[in-house]
């Protein structure tokens, strides 16, 4: 089991009170899975993603990543886990504007302590698999959105992570670029990378092998709405378009 969550809750302080953003989330992801998580804005998707990605720590519940309980791990260990085990793709790319494509992609390898020459070589390879061999020395502001996201995916996979986490990877892209990104994800999954992806769009989510829905911090597996009783404010939610 790569990801195993049991009754995960996450509270954020709001003034003097606490707001529970995630409620008793249970999630199991096997190696090779390809999971899409859908949900309206503010439902806790990013919060969940941050917990899975070891960027944040749960308020209660148990979480094992690749069998390891990281509850009491220090910031150094967490950094190591993110560096070795995980790859991140963000909605707005987060490329460093001063670095060219190769240097952006090579960054995680630098923190992994890979020698400079090898870093460059592996970054070039990763960019090639993204179809960017003729854009290697371009800076982010010389690239289109779709190209930027492909550089970001190259950066996420250059360290050969077990788990790729993508938070609305196509959210900032037109549909043509978006489907190009999805083709890449399909291929990566076929080659063995486990993927957890957050998205708004049904068409994107449909590319995954499995879809889960989150609403008001509650994760469910079916397409149906989560039970109304458990939404405290009783707000009526639209089904996802």
């Amino acid at each position: 089991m790569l990801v195993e969550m049991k009754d995960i809750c996450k509270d954020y302080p709001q003034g003097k009170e606490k707001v529970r953003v995630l409620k008793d989330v249970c999630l199991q992801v096997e190696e090779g899975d390809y999971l899409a998580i859908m949900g309206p804005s503010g439902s806790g998707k990013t919060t969940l993603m941050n917990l899975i990605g070891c960027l944040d720590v749960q308020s209660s519940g148990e979480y094992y990543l690749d069998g390891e309980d990281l509850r009491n791990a220090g910031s150094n260990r967490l950094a190591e886990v993110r560096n070795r085990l995980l790859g991140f793709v963000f909605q707005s790319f987060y490329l460093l504007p001063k670095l060219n494509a190769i240097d952006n992609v090579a960054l995680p390898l630098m923190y992994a302590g890979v020698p400079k020459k090898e870093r460059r070589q592996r970054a070039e390879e990763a960019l090639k698999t993204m179809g960017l061999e003729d854009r290697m020395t371009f800076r982010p502001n010389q690239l289109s959105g779709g190209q930027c996201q492909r550089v970001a995916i190259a950066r996420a996979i250059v360290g050969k992570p077990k788990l790729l986490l993508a938070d609305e990877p196509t959210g900032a892209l037109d549909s043509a670029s978006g489907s190009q990104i999805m083709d890449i994800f399909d291929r990566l999954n076929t080659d063995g990378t486990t993927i957890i992806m957050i998205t708004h769009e049904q068409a994107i989510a449909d590319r995954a092998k499995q879809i889960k829905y989150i609403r008001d911090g509650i994760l469910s597996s079916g397409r149906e709405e989560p039970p109304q009783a458990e939404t405290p404010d009783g707000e009526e939610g639209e089904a996802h378009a």
Partner: protein
Amino acid sequence: MFESISQALHGVFSHKMRSFLTMLGIIIGIASIITIISGIKGTNEQIKANLIGAGNNVVTVQLYQNDMPYEMMYSGNPVGVKPLEAGQREELRKLDGVDNVTFYHSRSYAEQIYYQNTAFTGNVFGIDDSYFAVNDYQIKQGRGFTAEDQAQNRKVVILDERAVQTLFGSENPVGKAVEIMQEPFVIVGVAARSSNFEPVINSVDDYYSYAQTDAGSFFLPDSAWPIVYRFDEPQNVAVRANSTDDMTNAGKAVADYMNENQIASQASKDGMSYRSNDLLKRAQQLQELSSSTNNQLIWIAAISLLVGGIGVMNIMLVSVTERTHEIGLRKAIGAKRRRILTQFLTEAAVLTGIGGILGVLAGIGMSKLISKFMDTPSAISIPAIAAATVFSILIGLVFGFVPAVKASKLNPIEALRRE
């Protein structure tokens, strides 16, 4: 390490204007310190050169009674002070730092010296055959003393140029006779110091030691000394040290030797002692005086460095805020705190280090300009340049520390969320 430095350099050069303005305080501070230190060093070298004479590493070891040089003429022959014997010269030459030694008898303000009807009051020395070599005298006219002069106790004399000036003007003195203590002496030569010895006069003490040599000097072979003065007078010693830096040690070694071997314990209780007239020490005292005034200026320049450091801290804090996304991203993909800390510390140190180097260059330029237009001495000090560069890097590390810690402690989620 090398990589993070080149990365930091890249950062500095991509914000040229901002980097330069940030460095300005450091540049000004370091430049003023280098200028001041060059001034101090220049003055010190001038003092040393003036007082010691270029390349003439001679220390005189003189007989003192209490704190005054002992004057035979007024006080008579001292009791319990043994004259040196020729054989002791070799022993003295073997002492640490000693290159050569000479013994000589001397009289300051000696009287009863005449050329025809003109009286002369000045110095008379009874010298051995190494005196001229040790003291850098050269024979300008006539000849030096020969072995026969010494062996046959000939009544011959050599004058220095000043004495010639006083008694003969432009006339050639060689072959003329002078009278010393009613004994006729024949002038066989004229000697002059080869190095240009022009002492700086900074105190009454200096004035007297300068004035002493001013009237001019007569040199007799020491074999002729008993003809006019006493045969059992103790001598003074002039020591040529191996190098300028050996002067103090060589002088002290000789003075110690003399005190131990030539002065009886009763005489020593009466306050008789040999002291080395160490110009190097004198130079150091004068140098300290001039440095201490300038040291206060350095403190003022240090304030500029402090202000510069605070400017660096300010800009680094701004830079951390501007780059929260970058920091968040770096942490998300696996940068440990230490890496972020090092990155920002390196940037600060590279910034101030470059500032320091520019400051050093500006300081060198400034001191060259000042010494050219105001005709004051200046000398570039390599240790000061090294220290200034290291110190400015240190400023970067100190003032960059708070911003770097702040960056390293950023929470990656917060950093990525922030707009």
